[in-house]
């Protein structure tokens, strides 16, 4: 579904992605982890061209996303993207946030879009907050609304960039529960996370990045075993020490 071919990215002299080649199979869940500054957020942001790359090639569903014939907005509307900071639009109600893509990209009227949006809000358990403004709901709820918004156009790919990192601990659970339901439901999922227990539970593959390189790409069983890459074992034990 998504293929990275020798992808590299620099900010000036700083190389943040180092010759990464990897494949994400259709319908699978990939968890990306690694120390901060390892390039995992940058890597997932290259998939919908939020980050330009300097060399290499990325294909989505077999098409080079940087090809001239690819309309960037079309590409993006087919890829759901969830940010750490939710990035809901504060001037729009919850339901208006969710139906915005239907109205502005599919040209639907408010009346046409409303049932779809409400159905999606029910799915994330927030139908009763439809008329609230983002400022009046909790962080966990806001992130669920953001996920609903990113799914409203039924994308085949969903990318989440540390979806629970900005949440209070008691709200992490509700977002992970939702992601658990999504994973394995046919959608291709890439998620940057520090929740290693969650990663182990839902991932088909776990990618470990360090200094812009994809050092280890393994099944969860292998990832958490003694045969894992030494960097991974070091990373995991440092996490355990801190908990």
């Amino acid at each position: 579904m998504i293929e990275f071919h020798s992808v590299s990215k620099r900010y000036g002299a700083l190389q943040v992605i180092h010759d990464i080649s990897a494949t994400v199979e259709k319908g699978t869940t990939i968890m990306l982890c690694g120390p901060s500054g390892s390039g995992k957020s940058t890597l997932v942001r290259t998939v919908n061209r939020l980050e330009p790359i300097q060399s290499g090639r990325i294909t989505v569903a077999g098409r080079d996303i940087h090809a001239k014939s690819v309309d960037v907005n079309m590409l993006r509307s087919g890829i759901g993207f969830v940010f750490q900071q939710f990035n809901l639009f504060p001037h729009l109600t919850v339901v208006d946030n969710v139906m915005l893509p239907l109205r502005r990209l599919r040209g639907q009227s408010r009346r046409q879009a409303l049932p779809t949006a409400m159905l999606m809000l029910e799915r994330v358990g927030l139908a009763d907050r439809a008329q609230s403004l983002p400022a009046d709901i909790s962080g966990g709820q806001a992130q669920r609304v953001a996920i609903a918004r990113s799914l409203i156009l039924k994308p085949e790919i969903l990318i989440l960039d540390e979806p629970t990192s900005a949440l209070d601990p008691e709200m992490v659970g509700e977002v992970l529960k939702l992601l658990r339901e999504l994973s394995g439901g046919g959608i291709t999922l890439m998620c940057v996370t520090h929740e290693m227990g969650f990663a182990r539970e839902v991932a088909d593959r776990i990618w470990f990045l360090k200094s812009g390189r994809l050092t280890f790409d393994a099944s969860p069983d292998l990832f958490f075993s003694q045969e894992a890459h030494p960097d991974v074992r070091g990373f995991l034990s440092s996490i355990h020490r801190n908990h």
Partner: protein
Amino acid sequence: MLEILQEYGVLLLIGEYPHGKLGGLAMTLIISFVSLIATFPCAVLIALARTGKNKPLKRLASGFVHCVRAIPLLMLIFWAYFALPVVIGIPIDATYTLIIAIVIYQTAYLGEIIASGLEGLPEGQTEAAEALGLGYIPTTFRILLPQALFNVIPGIVNQLTTIIKESSLGSIIAVPELSYAMLQVNSNEVTKPLQIFGILAATYFVLCFALSQATGVLERRISNRRTGRVVVEAVA
């Protein structure tokens, strides 16, 4: 003072209307509101050019802003008054001349206020809109501008007080607004300049002070709405 108000009150409020031209305070308010409304779309365009990615447009807009900010409004009024009719070949009413000059002048200032509103939005708003696949137009007009304009409402109201004060310069080219009416009164009653200009000053003060108080209230409401706190009405 009271005699002045009794004798010239109507002239000061509405000029010679309905027997002659509308003027006085009513004209000042009309000129101010019309100027603000006409300035608004121009200022939005300048702000978009200033904060946008198109380099030539950006330079053009900032050139305009820097030029306008470096000249006094009075110069613009003179230019509009003397040069504009020559350039376009037809005489223009002094009131329109004043409005045109104020619009050009305020476009620079209001444009900067709106630009600051756009720049003050979190980067994530643009990114979220882009990630959804929204193009420039919906991102700008549905996501960024509504938020930016809402946040700078106090600045816009504040600019209205500035415009009200600036409209007094119209008296120089005989626009029949409040200051001009006062000058007329002053030439009738040559011995009472203190009272006459006292009334004039008090009128501008009441208008502008009320507006700046309103600005304060708006500012509080806006910050409450954005942070999600319930707006508590002040109980007098």
